[in-house]
């Protein structure tokens, strides 16, 4: 059995039969996971400096050189690396007195921080499977982002307290601005206008307080509040739709969760995207008291100026590990990164590796190198490499950069 590091569900029941240079047959991988595994065989990186192929040693030496000489380096990425690599990365940031940030900054960071600090009640996905009778996907479309979420945990499987079929024993609620693939499957879909999340939450709170809702179809809203009240165990899965909509009004969501817990038992599991984003956030919290956006210059400083979206413009050098910010971030931020002294550790070619001064190829984490990671719900999962490879892991590359500095 192999573990799929294609998303933060870290499915552990993957069976792969190999032949030379290809996968002969893979069982239980979803389309997304299959794409992740197939990525082994295309667009692999080679060590390079200034666009010219070099030896691995030369690339590592040049990377160390750039980072050592930078006045204000940023170390970014991390969500696609093992806990072991992340630990070395944080040590490297300390040594360089660098800024360090990960994808959570513009992803699930706001919610995950509250979960990790115990401000939002959470549970494991196994608890969801065994006990939940209401699953709420809010601004999330797991069918596309985490394809096996519904079948492994949140809607379709049998669990210790959910022995009957999903039609009888579970409700699935989707709140979204569009009828997503998941909305088509759920038992109750609520369409909201963009930015309407706060009003939706307030309307449910109002009903729970015995008032009339001022938002949406009153009858349906009251019906939903009634589903919420009757639940034995509810799980809320907020996606980026909710996070981006509430940004600085997250307390409204916290109030709703608190109110729901007055009437029943509700847990929140943020829909973390990358396979080990939560792992990095946990390590950072232990180390600094914050989950991301840290500068180690003269101590430990936290703040939005250290987020990748801000620091990309101010930093003179950037180390990117296992991430493609030039694809995923707004163009102006991507262009700042492209113009900085950019060092990239990545198994595969991307817009970011193409723009980098130094590219260091790494083993694909979970496929060619082993380690540990933290699933979206906090469960630690170990994985072994399933393909033989001479490539160094992120951890080994980062250790060598550390030694060179």
């Amino acid at each position: 059995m192999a573990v799929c590091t294609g998303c933060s569900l870290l499915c552990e029941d993957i069976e792969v039969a190999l032949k030379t240079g290809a996968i002969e047959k893979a069982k239980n991988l979803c389309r997304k996971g299959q794409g992740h595994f197939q990525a082994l065989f295309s667009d692999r990186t080679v060590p390079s400096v200034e666009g010219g192929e070099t030896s691995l040693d030369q690339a590592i030496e040049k990377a160390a050189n750039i980072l050592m000489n930078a006045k204000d380096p940023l170390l970014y990425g991390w969500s696609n690396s093992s806990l072991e690599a992340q630990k070395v990365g944080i040590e490297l940031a300390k040594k360089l007195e660098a800024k360090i940030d990960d994808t959570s900054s513009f992803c699930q960071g706001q919610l995950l921080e509250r979960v990790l600090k115990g401000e939002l009640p959470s549970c494991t996905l196994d608890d969801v499977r065994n006990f939940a009778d209401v699953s709420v996907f809010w601004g999330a479309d797991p069918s596309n982002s985490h394809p096996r979420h519904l079948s492994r945990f949140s809607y379709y499987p049998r669990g210790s307290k959910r022995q009957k079929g999903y039609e009888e024993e579970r409700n699935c609620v989707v709140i979204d601005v569009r009828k997503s693939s998941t909305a088509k499957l759920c038992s109750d879909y609520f369409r909201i206008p963009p930015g309407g999340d706060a009003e939706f939450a307030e309307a449910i709170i109002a009903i729970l307080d015995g008032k009339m809702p001022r938002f949406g179809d009153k009858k349906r809203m009251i019906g939903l509040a009634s589903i919420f009240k009757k639940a034995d165990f509810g799980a809320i899965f907020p996606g980026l739709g909710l996070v981006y909509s509430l940004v600085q009004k997250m307390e409204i969501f916290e109030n709703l969760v608190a109110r729901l817990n007055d009437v029943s038992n509700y847990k929140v599991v943020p829909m973390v995207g990358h396979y080990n984003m939560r792992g990095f956030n946990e390590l950072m919290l232990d180390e600094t008291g914050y989950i991301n956006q840290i500068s180690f210059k003269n101590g430990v400083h936290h703040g939005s100026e250290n987020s990748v979206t801000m620091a990309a413009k101010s930093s003179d050098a950037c180390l990117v590990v296992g991430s493609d910010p030039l694809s995923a971030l707004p163009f102006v931020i991507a262009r700042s990164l492209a113009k900085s002294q950019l060092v990239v550790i990545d198994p595969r070619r991307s817009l970011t590796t193409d723009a980098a001064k130094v590219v260091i190829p790494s083993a694909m984490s979970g496929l060619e190198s082993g380690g540990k990671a933290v699933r979206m719900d906090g469960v630690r999962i170990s994985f072994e490499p399933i393909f033989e490879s001479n490539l160094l892991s992120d951890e080994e590359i980062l250790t060598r950069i550390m030694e060179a500095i």
Partner: protein
Amino acid sequence: MGIDLRIITFRDIFQYEAGKKSRFSPEFQNLSAQIIMDKDDMVQLGLKDGQNVCLENEMSKIVVKAIQTDDEPHPGLAFMTNSPWSNQLVKDNINDRIIPDFKAILVQASASNESVTNLAELLERLRH
């Protein structure tokens, strides 16, 4: 004549799969350089399913393929996957919000005879 649209980014498993295979593949471009639009909005712009539409705001200008939605009507709203194409149009003016407006991209849309903006051109823009 153009119309104002709010673009919301979303995740699509097929676009993700294409990007995993190769960021530089035609499949990734085809599935990224497209916008899902409301039927009436398309009629207003004189667009048929699959025709090209120009999206422009103060950040940038790109040409992508317009795809007619199979959802309920959503005039004024349109959907794109998160990709180097949609990111051309996302404001960097994030101030203390940190999170860029990936799901609130305001643009002017108009019918276009130009070809779809390709990845090579986006890469060129990154260098300048």
